[in-house]
């Protein structure tokens, strides 16, 4: 019974936490009001633009060093791109090893700090030692003291490289061709965090198939949701693989419902007969598809977004605000159910 008042307190305290987050990037677990509802976020911050590069490529299976080299090549290519270097570069799920690694995960998994160091070295080599800072998101198998996770790291590379966040995949598929939970542990949290380029969150592949996960990210204030993914293509009934269409639909509905940008970067290439569909894309907060790469072949897609669109979309369709208004009752409903379960078990046992 002790946990109940604690949870309610967390809900009530959320707006305060958001203010702290707005000042300096606290990593909070509370529910953060949408940015448009907070006067402190108005002005130039709302009109902030973010230049994104979504990278899709086929990693060399199990060859981590080679895949860091590929990332370095991407940085070098972006350095010479006519559009200039992007603010944020997004790589797919399991970019450093390939996706289907099975029992080999322990051999290719890295500590997050190690990934940061090697990404930073790659950036220095590709862009020069004094390159302007930029953000990067990379999916990789993580080794945390022997515990293995399917993770994605968000880091800022530059003079002072820093990890902003590591998301560990929560929803580990174990159906059909998938057997993730046999080899890695589940992540436990969905967080939004402040970056140089807006308040953001990360979900990995199937995480984002659960609408509740996107909802949590949006409730925690994310303006941009990043989805590193590895989606094996299946269903050739129509002009494009069925999973490409499914992902586009999922993203369109989630983006429009929550007024959030969703950036998706997918692996490509075949691994043991299973062909990944890239179709890396950026969905705008009106559910408007901004850009999409072909489903096959390596590619980098780029676009610039204005975070102001998040506010405009949320004002036009205030579904997220409406959800916040009802959230206390909805949460209480689930809490009530959760609390009633152990007591029932207890009474059964006592009889």
């Amino acid at each position, binding site marked *: 019974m002790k946990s109940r008042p604690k949870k309610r307190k967390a809900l009530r305290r959320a707006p305060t936490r958001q203010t702290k987050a707005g000042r300096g990037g606290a990593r909070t677990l509370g529910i953060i009001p949408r940015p448009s509802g907070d006067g402190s976020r108005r002005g130039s911050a709302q009109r902030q633009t973010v230049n994104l590069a979504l990278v899709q490529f*086929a990693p060399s*299976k*199990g060859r981590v060093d080679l895949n860091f080299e590929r990332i370095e090549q991407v940085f070098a290519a972006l350095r010479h791109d006519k559009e200039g270097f992007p603010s944020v570069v997004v790589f797919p799920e399991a970019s450093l090893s*390939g996706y*289907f*690694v*099975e*029992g*080999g995960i322990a051999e290719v998994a890295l500590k997050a700090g190690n990934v940061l160091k090697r990404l930073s070295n790659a950036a220095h080599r590709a862009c020069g030692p004094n390159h302007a800072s930029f953000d990067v998101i990379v999916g990789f198998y993580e080794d945390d003291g022997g515990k293995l996770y399917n993770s994605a790291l968000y880091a800022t590379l530059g003079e002072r490289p820093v990890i902003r966040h590591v998301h560990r995949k929560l929803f580990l598929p174990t159906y059909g061709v998938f057997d993730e939970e046999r080899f890695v542990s589940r992540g436990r949290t969905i967080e939004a965090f402040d970056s140089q380029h807006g308040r953001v969150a990360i979900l990995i592949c199937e995480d984002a198939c659960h609408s509740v996960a996107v909802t949590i990210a949006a409730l925690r204030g994310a303006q941009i949701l990043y989805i590193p993914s590895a989606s094996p*293509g299946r269903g*050739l*009934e*129509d*002009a*494009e*693989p069925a999973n490409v269409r499914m992902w586009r639909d999922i993203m369109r509905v989630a983006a429009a419902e929550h007024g959030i940008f969703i950036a998706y970067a997918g692996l490509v*290439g*075949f*691994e*043991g*007969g299973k*062909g990944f569909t890239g179709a890396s894309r950026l969905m705008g907060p009106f559910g408007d598809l901004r850009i999409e790469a072909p489903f*096959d072949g390596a590619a980098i897609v780029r676009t610039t977004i204005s975070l102001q669109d998040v506010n405009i979309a949320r004002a036009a369709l205030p579904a997220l605000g409406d959800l916040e208004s009802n959230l206390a009752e909805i949460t209480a409903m689930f809490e009530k159910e959760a609390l009633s379960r152990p007591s029932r078990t207890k009474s059964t046992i006592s009889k």
Partner: protein
Amino acid sequence: MKAAVLPIVHAPAVVDRGLQLDAALAERWLINFLRDEMIVRRGIRNAIVGVSGGVDSAVVTYLCAKALGPENVYGVRMPYSTSSDESFRHGGLVIGNTRVHDIVVNISDAVDGYLHYEPDASQTRRGNVMARQRMIVLFDQSAKYDGLPVGTGNKSERLLGYFTWHADDSPPINPIGDLFKTQVWQLARHLGVPKEIVDKPATADLIRGQTDEEDLGITYARSDRILALMLMGYGEEDMIARGFSPADVALVMRKVNATHWKRHLPTTAVVSTTAINEFYLRPVDY
């Protein structure tokens, strides 16, 4: 007062999408598969395809020629003394149309050399010896031409167990193994495989006059629909409710359930905590 008339829209109660295929997408997908699995993953540019004169090997030859270039594809015809002339001629047509290398290896002496000591071998045993001899040839030709044997078995025959174990299923990669026979026909028409090859009755040509559908006791058109529904999770009663005869449904399910072993590697006695593919798990491309 007259009641307002509302339009009534009828939709089909059940939509079978299990066999639907966009042939252009399938072509693109399978060409990518061949390039990735052969060149990118294995560093091999040459394909060795056993060209029987049937539609399966024709489709694979067309795909390999498009994926790798005809100069990198070796079409191998392997007639036995009882093989039909039509099969040989149709194989030549495929090789000519795709402009791949034309190789002929007559397996009669090799097969008869063994069967000389087994004069009482049944037709089934003889057919299996032929099928396995053909694989010996394909793997040896792959060593000769620094290539990779490419499989030509389709999903229907794999599910029904209508193939020789460690023969037709041996090549390390197979672009059409997840396509039902009726989908292979569809893809063949899209690729431009000659009509006379697509439209003729499918045959393993191991026995004179043999056809797949007579051997199986059901047409591919019917068995593929049953197989597709079964794989989607529908049971016997569901399929009978959709109009399939109980005998056909039972026949197909019996064949599938009796041949699971044929779709796996040999069973190994597990005696340790490091048994390969049981505890020690590494993907094929690791």
